[in-house]
């Protein structure tokens, strides 16, 4: 039976991707609902159809095969599919209330949304607050509704310092915090560094929530963030130094904005790596950046030059300096 169901999902997958490509909301919902009709459990539709398709879309964007507008439209369609599947599954909550939210500035809501729906299917009374939830709103929601726990998603490691501030704000409400998402490292190692409970997926999250010991207050992590603070203060200066080496006259206004944004991401990622004191955070970002930029025809030696300029300025920043020196920029395979 499982094999039959798997093959049903497998055969629906190309049709589903086609619907995403056309931004065909109704078509995509039909594909998902017909799987439910065929007896495929809702959880499998979410995790074996919607999730991998979304990962595929991200990859296409990364390789510049899809525009950001296409990716955005597809994500919206996926969100609608998740909503439709959730409504069709009609689970009655039998367990306590949990709140799922993406941290401020986190727009990749779909993975968190999938976790929220799988938890709902598992009987939890889930409130999904959506993408980029401002901390004050999140905190007042927690004070108001006293949930069992709050699950916070962070997709981008460069957002970790911000994520940690939001986590601390949530902890001050006394509501237990559980985090997830690739922003905390594939194995959650940066969550461990920040002293916060981590779940790698929805299943793991559900079982952590069911553990009474999860309530035990965790001591606040003590991070030495002097170097991080210095980097944040030097951000604009670093970007300006890097810009001096580029011939901006040849750039269109949109290209200038994109370059500024990329330089901002480089500094943010470097700062986040310094924050958790882990060179691999910056290394992983640079690997990703190399693929994104080379697939868009940006010459990588200009990025290498940027690293040199920044390393030169950051001689008094031992971690940042070492991370910039150790990293190697490679084009996409």
């Amino acid at each position: 039976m499982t094999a039959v169901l798997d093959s049903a999902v497998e055969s629906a997958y190309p049709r589903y991707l086609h619907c995403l490509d056309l931004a065909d909301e109704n078509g995509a919902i039909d594909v998902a609902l017909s799987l439910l009709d065929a007896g495929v459990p809702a959880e499998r539709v979410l995790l074996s159809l919607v999730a991998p398709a979304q990962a595929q879309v991200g990859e296409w964007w990364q390789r510049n095969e899809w525009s950001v507008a296409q990716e955005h439209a597809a994500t919206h369609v996926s969100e609608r599919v998740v909503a439709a599947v959730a409504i069709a599954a009609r689970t009655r909550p039998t367990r306590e209330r949990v709140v799922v939210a993406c941290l401020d500035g986190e727009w990749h809501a779909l993975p968190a949304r999938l976790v929220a729906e799988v938890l709902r299917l598992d009987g939890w009374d889930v409130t999904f607050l959506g993408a980029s939830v401002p901390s004050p709103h999140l905190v007042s929601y927690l004070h108001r509704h006293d949930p069992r726990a709050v699950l916070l998603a962070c997709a981008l490691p460069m957002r970790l310092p911000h994520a940690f501030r939001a986590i601390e704000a949530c902890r001050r409400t006394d509501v237990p915090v559980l985090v997830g998402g690739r922003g905390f490292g594939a194995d959650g190692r940066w969550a461990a560094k920040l002293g916060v409970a981590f779940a790698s997926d929805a299943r793991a999250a559900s079982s952590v929530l069911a553990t009474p010991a999860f309530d035990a207050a965790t001591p606040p992590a003590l991070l030495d963030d002097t170097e991080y603070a210095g980097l944040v203060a030097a951000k604009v200066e670093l970007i300006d130094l890097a810009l001096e080496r580029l011939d901006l006259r040849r750039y269109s206004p949109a290209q200038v904005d994109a370059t500024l944004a990329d330089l901002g991401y480089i500094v943010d990622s470097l700062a986040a790596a310094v924050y958790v004191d882990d060179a691999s955070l910056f290394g992983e970002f640079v690997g990703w950046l190399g693929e994104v930029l080379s697939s868009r025809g940006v010459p990588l030696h200009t990025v290498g030059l940027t690293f040199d300029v920044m390393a030169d300025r950051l001689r008094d920043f031992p971690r940042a300096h070492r991370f910039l020196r150790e990293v190697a920029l490679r084009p996409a395979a």
Partner: protein
Amino acid sequence: MNPADLDGSESGGRQVPLTAAPDRPAVTSLAPRQTPPPGELALVDNFREGVVVTDPTGVIREFSQPALRLMPGLVVGHTFAGCGVAPLSAGELTIGERRVRCRRVDLTIAGATSIAWYVEDVTDAIARSDALLAERGRARFLATASQQLGNPLHEDRAARAAVRLAVPTLGEVAVVVLAPRRGRARWWRAGGGDGPTLVDGGVHSADGLPPAVAQALDGTEPSEADWLADQLAEVGWLGGRRPDTAAVRVVSLPGSASPTGALIVVRGTPFDEHDVEMLRGFAARAGAALDAAVLYRDQAEVAETLQASLAPSEPPGVGGVQWGAAYRPAQSSLRIGGDFYGAHELPDGGALFYLGDVSGKGVDAAVFTGQIRQGIQALRRIESDPARLLTLLNDSVLETTRAHGHGRFATMVLGSTHPTHGGGLSLTLASGGHLPPVVLRSDGTVETLDLRGMLIGVVPDPRIAALTVQLAAGETCVLFSDGVTEARGGVRGEQFGAARLVAALEGCQRMPAPAVAERVEQVIGDWLGGRNHDDIAVFAIRAVPPSVPQRHLHAVPAS
């Protein structure tokens, strides 16, 4: 050391010989010396430390008076055991009821080996430092409690924090009973059985509460009497402990007006005055925390009601129209602000829609948007032409602002939409001083409409701009507030501007309307990079072919 430390040691029977000190070496000297004649220990009789000298086999050779006071029965010529005294060993030990610090020094005196035992009574010093440590411990406990109780702003969570903190410092079981609401009292308990950290709870009818608890909830502290434990056992709060072995205290948790709850602590040992003092200190802190939580709840309820009435409502389903909206108020905890949008269905099958921005920020501005939306709601029944409706609205706003003297004004785009043949929409737009909308054409280009007009609510009969625009199937008109174009961000905090908005929407022609609105919200969010912003509102109207059936969101039964 202070003089008080020596008090007890100076009560020795002999006087200090005035000639003693200069010509005699110290007793503790390890240098060989003459064996003093009997009674020559007179000098050391006035030391705090007592001394007992034995030969290598343990037979007592001599001892000083303080040693005798600690160990009555010492006799020269006997062993310790022979005198009925427990043998000494180096370190801290108990002799009778006293704590004694003891050290051993091996001496060679005139070729003969002796063992000198120095014993010091440290009972009082230990008691004093214990009291100090206990006092410090209590202070530290209350400081920690203050800090942790101040965190939650939810009554139940504050109550749970209180019982968790109370165990084990105050007692083995702690119960907080919250002041009853609508005849029912919630309670939370720690140490009730399944492990000390586990907190359980329940609801009790206010009438059936134990009298002592009801008394504490009225603000008077019940006296400690045996029947307290019986009362609690009756409602099952003792957690398996026997009432006859339990010491129980019930105290009020004081609030600003009346007690916010009652705290019950149960333990096996009786409460002394320090325990009760600490219990009251803790109760004061827990009461303040619960008081803050109740205050927060009451205010949050008001805010939620306000928010619900002022937050944008879901646009109605209208044939051929797909709506998409994004809304991000500057004041993010309350989620209301001075931007507003909305749509109403028209009797002729079309729809009326609007997006605007009032002067000012926060709750005041939000209340004003409510008045404007109500105005539109009422006026649309007598006028469906957008420009004429805006003129009427202007008169109504002017009247209100003059009556209240607050001088508020608004900018807005208001439009009506009707389906055309071929799946398109015909939009009639009117603007009162608002930013011109943009249109996403089916070829991926973005067109900025030429639509300005004058502010609403400033002068009578303002100039209202109006135009008609056709949307083909799949084309989208986007209305937005100045929070979008004036968002300060990027590397140097510059304004986002209209050009970047147009660039962000180019090529987005295939996006559903909600995705278009989300995209603008996201691009602005990235641009801001966490900086503060003004209210942000986006409202997208997309022409969708009416042939596409409205989505059924239920599972179709398998055929």
